[in-house]
């Protein structure tokens, strides 16, 4: 049952990405991210938050 759910999820994800015109690499990355390595989902969002904070702190530092 778990295998069927994961397989169906992967197929639907691939179809969704193909519909959006994603490349092979993007599709492979999305599947790996969500199914094989769920603990790394959203890492790019955390990285973006870190970059924003660094930019803001840089301006704060330059101002003081």
């Amino acid at each position, binding site marked *: 049952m778990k295998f069927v759910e994961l397989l169906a*999820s992967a197929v639907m994800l691939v179809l969704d990405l193909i519909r959006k015109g994603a490349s092979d690499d993007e599709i492979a990355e999305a599947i790996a991210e969500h199914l094989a390595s769920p603990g790394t989902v959203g890492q790019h*969002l*955390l990285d973006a938050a870190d970059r*924003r904070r660094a*930019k*803001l702190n840089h*301006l704060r530092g330059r101002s003081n």
Partner: protein
Amino acid sequence: MSPKLEITFLAGVFAVALILLALVLTGCATVQQRAMIRSERVLEAGSDAWDNIVDQRIVECEAAPSPADCIEPTAKADDAVRVGVVAAVAALRAYWLGVAVGADPKDLQRHLAAFYKAVSTLPPEAFGGLLGGAR
């Protein structure tokens, strides 16, 4: 109908019923997972939009007489965004880990609720696309 044939027939009906049930349950789970992936994509778009807002504000504040005072409200707003994004990502990870280990649907629903609660705190000018699902 002989007893052997009858048992075979009943076993076949039972197997078909099991397969249909599995298909229905799989379909429900897949719809939920697709919704989560879509929500994550909208969250990414919101993060990009917030990046643009912050960048624009930084440019404006660099030209201001007191850049520190100018950037402070944006920096505070970004602190709140950071808290919301971290909470949303934690909920996303808990959800996908739950899917990977075959967690109870109630646990998955709890992670979904945590995700939508986290994104409901994000500024609508950047993350507005998520708020329809959050409320």
